[in-house]
Structures are given as C-alpha cells and as structure tokens.
C-alpha cells in the first residue's frame, strides 16, 4: 500500500517537474530567436536592481493597496514553499511530517505557514473583489477579454484552493491537532470537522487534502507556461537585464551610423565596386516588423508581463481613448512569439506563415499614438520597456517602408532641408535677438 503511494508520488513529481522543464526550454529557445544585446555591463548595479525591484518589490508599493496585498501573497508563496519540501520528503519516503523532529521550531514554522496561508487567502479574495466587484478599470480594458481575463481568475482560484487545502490538511490531521501547537488558524476549523466526520473519514479527508495540495502545486507549476503568471520566475532575469540608461535615451542604430559616416566622408568613392563577397551580405533590416527583429530582452519582457495594466492605466494615449495600450503591445508580442515557436515545433525551423507582428498583431495606429513619455516604463513593477518595441516598429515603418504620415514627412523634410522641423530658414535662426 505504502509502496504504491510512494511510486505514485514519484511518478507525479517527475512528470510535473519534467513537463515544466520541457516548457521552460521552449521559452528559452523562443527568446533566443531575438537579436543579441549586451546587457551584462555593471553587474553590481544589475544585482542591486534585481534585489530591490524583483526580490524587494520596491516598485509594487507605488500603488499601496495592490502593492501590500501582492507582497503578502509573494512572501506567503515563498515561505509556504518550505512546507512543500516536507511534503516531497513525506511523499517519497512514506513518512508523515518528516520535519517534526525539529520540535518547537517545527511548530513555529507551521504556525507561520498557517498565518501566511490565511493572509494569502484573504489577499487573494480581495484581489478577486477588486477585479470582479470593484471592477478596477485597468482589468477591463479591451485586451482583457477572453483568455487574459479568465487566466487572471484561474490563478486566483488556484491560490484560494491551494491555501484552503493546506489549512484543511492541518485541521484534519488528528495527531497534529492533539499536539495543539503550530495550529493558530487550523484549530478553528477543527470543531467543524470533528462534529461532522468520524476519525476514519477525517483520515481520508487529510490524505485527500494532502494529495490534492501537492498535485495542485505541480499543476499550477505547469500552468505557468500557458499563463501570464510566468512573472514569478521571469521577474528576476527581467529586472537584471533591464536597461540602466536614462529612460530618455533611445538606443543607437549601429548599422545606420556606418552608412551615415560613409555618406558624410568626402573621401568615399560613390562609384567604387563593392568589396569582394559584399553582395552576399544581406543589408541589415532597420527597425522591427516581427518578433525576430526585436532583441532578446524585449522578448523576455513579453514573457514576463503579468498583464497588471499599470502601464496602460498611466498611458496618456490610452487615457484619452487612443488605440494604443502598452500592455497590449507586450501581450501581442508574446502571442506572436508563441505562434512562431509553434511554427518551429511543427516545421523544425521557422516557415514563413505570411504573418508579422506588425499589422497582423500590432497596428500602425497604435504605434503612432505614442508620445514616448515613458510613463509605461516608469510604472512597470518589473521594468518592462514597451516603448522600445514601439520605437523599433516606427523605425521599420519609416526607414523600410517610408510609411510615415504626410505631416511627419513634412517635418522630416524640413529638418533635412533647413535644419528645423518647421519651414524656417536656418539663416534666420538668430533673428529673435533683434526682435
């Protein structure tokens, strides 16, 4: 009997973790589809950012209610996972509460797990109320229909069930309750169970809760890959690799620099034959029209986004009814990346499917509504940068497709011809002095 339990547990554990690792590898492969970018400079600053922003949740509390509730759930999640270690040992070796030998420290641990589990349960219920009853607008933007909306709810239900199972498991563990230590919350559930069930049934309830708890954790672990909830893992690399430059600084396009230098060099012979082998080289594409044109950090950003919508709720374009939503930019980037990933799974390598991130997912109307104000970048609790994707797509539209609006073309022509965005003569630049 015991062997069957142990074997079943081992199979469950191996399958759960194995499947998860397989999907993580897929995410890693998909991110590698992006262009390389060096974000390994200033490691001390990067570790600090990761410590402060991901581990320390410093940007979360900018919105205090959501921030504090989130910290409770986050701390609960990490601390209660110590209990999972005990569950794994018990499951594999057929023991019961293997850490009991720790004595009073064990009871202290379990007591803190129980309190945290209770607080997490309350927080998650408040989250649900904020979403479904209070209907905070950022959870109801148009990109939050269908799966994104349900995804958020599934996660909340998962957490409610897992926390409840943990408390039920403790409440129905008769020897544990008889000890009457480490049960600050579950003791209040005991009368309900003792009044309604006999000892034999209680045993089975405890076992069922125990199994469902660990099975639930493994299912949840595997749900991450399909969900916005990946942020619990990816927030760490994402904050580590985030840009350290001032937010106003847009990256320099090296390929353009080379061409401009050549154009400005009086010694370059415009009729010179291309050097040997140069024809084979594909000229570099300017800007981005698909996920492969973005860099790896931008793709990591897409997987990290948990769709909280703080970016969108602070976006001036979105607030004034424009199509642009920075969150939707990230969600669409991930959707397209997933599509490309599935294409590769099926065909071995990417086979052109006639689709692109630009137009098929993100429209030029969204791209052109951005004021580049950096509110979205500032708001993101895990340092995602939707603005950089927007600018890369503008670059593609302008430099590869000449698809800027008439007004912008006039502005650019003016800069080209007379060094100002308006049609004034450069020779009149100092006239203000005498006016």
């Amino acid at each position, binding site marked *: 009997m015991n062997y069957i339990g142990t074997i079943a547990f081992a199979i469950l554990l191996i399958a759960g973790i194995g499947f998860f690792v397989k999907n993580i590898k897929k995410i890693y492969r998909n991110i590698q589809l992006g262009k390389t970018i060096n974000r390994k400079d200033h490691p001390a600053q990067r570790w600090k950012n990761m410590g402060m922003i991901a581990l320390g949740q410093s940007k979360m509390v900018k919105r205090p209610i959501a921030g504090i509730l989130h910290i409770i759930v986050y701390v609960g999640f990490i601390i209660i996972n110590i209990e999972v270690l005990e569950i794994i040992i018990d499951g594999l070796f057929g023991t019961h509460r293997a850490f009991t030998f720790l004595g009073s420290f064990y009871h202290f641990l379990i007591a803190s797990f129980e309190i945290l589990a209770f607080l997490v349960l309350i927080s998650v219920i408040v989250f649900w109320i904020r979403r479904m009853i209070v209907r905070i607008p950022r959870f109801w933007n148009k990109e939050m229909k269908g799966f994104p909306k349900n995804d958020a709810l599934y996660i909340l239900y998962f957490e409610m069930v897992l926390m409840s199972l943990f408390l039920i498991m403790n409440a129905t563990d008769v020897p544990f309750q008889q000890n009457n230590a480490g049960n600050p919350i579950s003791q209040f559930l005991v009368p309900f169970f003792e009044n309604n069930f006999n000892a034999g049934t209680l045993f089975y309830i405890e076992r069922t809760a125990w199994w469902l708890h660990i099975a639930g954790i493994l299912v949840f672990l595997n749900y991450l890959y399909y969900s916005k909830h990946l942020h619990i893992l990816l927030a760490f690399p994402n904050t580590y690799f985030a840009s350290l430059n001032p*937010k106003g600084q847009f990256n320099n396009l090296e390929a353009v620099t080379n061409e401009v230098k050549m154009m400005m060099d009086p010694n370059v012979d415009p009729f010179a034959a291309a050097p040997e082998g140069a024809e084979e080289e594909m000229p570099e594409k300017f800007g981005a029209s698909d996920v492969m044109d973005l860099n790896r950090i931008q793709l990591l950003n897409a997987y990290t986004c948990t769709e909280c919508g703080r970016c969108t709720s602070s976006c001036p374009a979105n607030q004034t009814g424009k199509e642009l939503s920075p969150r939707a930019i990230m969600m669409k980037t991930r959707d397209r990346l997933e599509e490309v990933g599935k294409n590769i799974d099926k065909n071995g390598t990417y086979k052109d499917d006639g689709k692109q991130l630009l137009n098929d997912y993100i429209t030029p109307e969204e791209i052109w*509504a951005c004021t*580049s104000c*950096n509110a979205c970048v*500032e708001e993101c609790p895990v340092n995602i940068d939707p603005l950089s994707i927007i600018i890369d797509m503008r670059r593609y539209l*302008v430099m590869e497709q000449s698809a800027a609006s008439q007004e912008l073309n006039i502005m650019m022509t003016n800069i080209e011809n007379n060094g100002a965005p308006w049609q004034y003569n450069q020779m009149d630049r100092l006239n203000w*002095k005498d006016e």
Partner: protein
Amino acid sequence: MNVPTMAEMMAQGKQPEVLFWVGCAGSFDDRAKKITKAFVKLLNKANVEFAVLGTEESCTGDPAKRAGNEFLFQMQAMTNIEVLNAYEVKKIVTACPHCFNTLKNEYPELGGIYEVVHHTELLKSLLDEGRITIEGGKFKGKRITFHDPCYLGRANDVYEAPRDLIKKLDVELVEMKRCKTNGLCCGAGGAQMFKEPEKGTKDINVERTEDAIEVQPNIIATGCPFCNTMMIDGIKATDKEQEIEVLDIAELIANAEDL
C-alpha cells in the same frame, strides 16, 4: 541684450563658460522666443559668459529619432557634433528638454561628449553660487503649479531644480495629483507635436490642463517650449485664459524683477 555667437567668441580668442543651445522652438516659435529672451536676460544679469551657435545651429534630430527616422537623426547629430567639437564646446545649456535629452544621452555614442544641463539646473546652480538672486516681486503669494516635462523628469530624473527655483519666488507651489514620476505628458512628445493625434476621445493636452485646473493655480509653470504650447492650447480649450497664465520658469524669474 548681449548674445555673442561662438564664431564671434572664437574670433576674439575666447572660450565661453557655456554654450546656450537655443533649439528650433526657441529660435522660431513666437511664444518660445520669449522664453529664450528671458533666459538670456538672466544669463546677462548673472554675467555668465555664454555664446550661441546662431546660424550654425541645426535641429538636434530629436523629432526625427522619435518618429523612427534614425538616418535623419544621425545625419543631424553628426553635423552638429562636427560644429560643436570644432568649437571645443565643453558645456551646453538648453531651455528645451528634448534638445537636453538628445545632446546629453544620444550624442555621446556618436562622438559628442559634453556636460549638458537644462536651463533650470543652470539657474539653480547660479542661485547656489550667489550669482543671481530670486525674489518674488510681482508673483509673490501666487499659486503656481509645475508641469513636469517628460524628457526632463522621467527621462532624466530632474525634478527638484525647477521646484527649488519656483519656491524662491515667495509663491505657493501646489502639486497636481499627477506629478514628478507620475506626471502626465502634455501630448507633444515623440514627434506628436508635428502631427494630428490619432483618433480618440480627448486631446492629451486638455486632460493635462484639467489636472492643473483642479489645483486652481494662477500660473502653470513649465520648463519646455512644447509643453508650454500644449498647456496654452489646453487653457484656451477650457476657457481659462482669463484666470491662468502659462509661463516658463525662466520667464517667471526674469519677469519677477521686470528684466
């Protein structure tokens, strides 16, 4: 008003303390020219040895870069850098946060390395060094709110210099509900200044002006010629022209003492 050019300075064998980068708005826009002049008056009063490029100045390329035209941006940048480096410019001040951001952050990689400050930062240091004094004058006791330009605030973390200057005017500085890192854009950034907005329900500058109106100021202070235009348009759109004035910080200080 004394406005020497770099060429004149060089002919005299002099190197100015700082180059004043006027910018396109500051050179050509009628409203922004007043800001330029106010700032020059303050520089003159503080006896700062400065110079402008005059007709040798050209657009930094900011709107081109934000619009996605990296080619045009880099052509502008490299041409400007050649001029600036030929004059051996070390320090630049500008009253436009867009020029400020571009010169400070995006020129170094193309070979233009300078110390770049916003005019509010320079004025603050002149104040700290005792080279200028700021008195309330005619603004004493007024309610003033400061609109953070995105390219000064969030983009470059300059929040305090403009506020420190305003406080010196003996006025009541009131903050909008969205300010500093949470400040709402005026709607002009990212080359939006030069195009009609996309279809929506409201103009961004009106949304922002309403933030300002909420705190009932006598004056909306700005530190950017584009924000200035947008806020003035917003004030017009909301029929508050009689009650609220929009002024750059340089204008506030210069006008306070009737320079």
